[in-house]
């Protein structure tokens, strides 16, 4: 990786919500996020529901304003942009939304949906003939037929809608696409189609992806690097294989272990089943956030928040994990099971 395309430093986002049990009204959805995304790279972002993945995506898209921290895109901070510059930034960073059903307006047809961005970015394809041609091209690109342009979203299946969402994101020829759970609503066979499509586009156009998913199998398949989130913090990052095969944070290990494997031998695996629930982000635990569910937790975990520990991975990339007692041996998982109950 040379100079990163997108860099995020210490991003924090707090929501004001109704009172919690402890009288807290401030919900820290993001708590000091650091990230980098290189050109043409896919960053996988995994984590449990409610840990802040979508909030991060929305903040990057400037749908939310962060309280703290900076976002740098090719050296500029998009939050400082206005007018024309803002528009051109908007053009370069696009998003595919989690829910293919909610993200398309049911009252527009596919052609209108795909060409909607040009209503704002008029100079991109000024003439209507150009626009029509480009719509056909985009639909073709995502594997839909030009004649589909007249159909309304209800007439498409979930997978096809997700493709429409991708076509719409592509309409502005962006450099970065944030994909928020692009396949979690889809059936297996459709999921494969979408993953193939994304892969093809990256090869062809060199776009970068931030790929958000809770399906580890999928992330493992698409991501170059992964970041694992827990309660608003990124607790582990590293190259995909490294993180998956040699998790250093206990949470990552538990996550990997909990995800069901399609293993046709029929032998039941032993696995770490985390006990307890994800704590409310309104009242996160003191010290290390994971300690309430961690089988390795000790007194210090309740008192001191762990600093990120950077280690070099065997392949030369950087590994980062926030834990007082990072796991050393991956094969020691079985031992962990016993403690986890």
């Amino acid at each position, binding site marked *: 990786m040379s100079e990163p395309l997108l860099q995020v430093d210490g991003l924090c986002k707090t929501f004001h919500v109704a009172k919690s049990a402890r009288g807290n009204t401030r919900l820290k959805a993001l708590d000091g996020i650091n990230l980098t995304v290189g050109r043409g790279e896919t960053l996988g972002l995994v984590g449990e529901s409610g840990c802040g993945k979508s909030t991060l995506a929305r903040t990057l898209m400037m749908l939310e304003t962060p309280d703290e921290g900076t976002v740098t895109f090719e050296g500029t901070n998009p939050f400082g942009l206005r007018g024309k510059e803002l528009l051109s930034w908007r053009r370069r960073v696009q998003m595919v939304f989690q829910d293919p059903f909610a993200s398309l307006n049911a009252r527009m047809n596919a052609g209108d949906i795909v060409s909607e961005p040009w*209503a*704002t970015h008029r100079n991109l394809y000024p003439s209507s003939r150009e626009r029509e041609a480009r719509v056909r091209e985009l639909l073709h690109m995502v*594997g839909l037929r030009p004649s589909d342009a007249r159909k309304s979203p209800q007439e498409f299946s979930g997978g096809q809608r997700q493709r429409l969402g991708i076509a719409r994101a592509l309409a502005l020829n962006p450099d970065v696409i944030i994909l928020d759970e692009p396949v979690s609503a889809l059936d297996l066979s459709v999921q494969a189609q979408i993953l193939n499509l994304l892969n093809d586009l990256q090869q062809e156009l060199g776009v970068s992806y931030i790929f958000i998913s809770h399906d580890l199998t999928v992330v493992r398949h698409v991501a170059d690097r992964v970041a694992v989130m827990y309660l608003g913090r990124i607790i582990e990052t590293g190259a995909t294989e490294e993180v998956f095969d040699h998790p250093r944070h206990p949470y990552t290990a538990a996550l990997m272990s909990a995800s069901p494997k399609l293993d046709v031998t029929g032998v039941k695996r032993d696995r770490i089943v985390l006990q307890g629930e994800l704590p409310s982000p309104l009242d996160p635990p003191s010290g290390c956030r994971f300690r309430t569910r961690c089988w390795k937790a000790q007194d210090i975990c309740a008192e001191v928040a762990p600093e990120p520990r950077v280690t070099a991975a065997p392949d030369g990339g950087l590994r980062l994990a926030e834990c007082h007692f990072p796991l050393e041996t991956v094969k020691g998982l079985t031992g962990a099971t016993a403690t986890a109950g």
Partner: protein
Amino acid sequence: MTSSLTEPAAQDQLPGTENRPSGKGNGSQDGNPNLFRLLLKDRFATVSAVLLVLIGLTAVIGPALMGDLATKQNLLFANKAPFSLAHGWEYVLGSDSLGRSMLARLVVASRTTFSVAVPAVAVALAVGSLWGVWAGYHRGWRENVSMRIADVIMSFPSLLLAVVVLYVFSPSAGNIVLILALTRIPIYLRTARAESAELQSRTFVDAARTFGARPNAIIGRHVIPVVLPTLLTLATLEFCYVMLAESSLSFLGIGIQPPDVSWGLMVSQGRQYLQTAWWLSIFPGVAIVVTTIAANVLAAWLRIATDPAQRWRLALPRKRLIARIPVKEAKP
């Protein structure tokens, strides 16, 4: 540049022409069924639609056909009973207390009634919904202020407003429209605000924001088209309310003024003749009720028919009805 992307793998994923996607959830396989065909299937809705069209036509062309029949008085011919052709077709519905043809008056009154109710509803709808959509989309202080204004209008005795305006500025049709519209704005305002506040957090609106679209463009493109059917249904119901309100104003003497005539005015003036000439108030009353029911039935039907998530209700079993009425469900 697209060549490699549309390679066989992607290519052969194109769905065949014959098997259209099933989509998730229910009802979506219905696509966009022809509303007219759907209408014909619901007999009540069909009858209502036909009635409304007839009434509408009467209001538009009827008065021209009636000429001055509606105002021609004949004091010697007052309060003649209806349903007799002895005095010519124009008196088939009887005559009123000044010997005018009830039929002609009902027809002429339909136009006045509509020309009060329709603009009143239209103005309230337009103002209330645009305002509500705007307030709901932007949330924050705009929403708060708008809702407080709505509160004020709602808790302000609308009758007082009506009386004052109509007394001070004369009870012309224009003022009646104005007053009825003003007092009904909050109804649309509230609904539009609620829907729009909900919509502005929808993902497709977020998507539009990520393109850099301006709020007004988003409101026009994404919010209004979605809110409109609900508001139109509401407007249909309000239409009935406005007709009734107009007749109440007539009761208080500040509605449509003679020699103009509306259904409400006819009911109101006919009430003193209930015992001597019932038709004076019954006929216009029936006209109001029939119009209202027809509009309500059609609105209820339309609300379901235009909502993809509810359309299935129209397909609900009608076993009992079918058992009685020998109508076969058409099976395509």
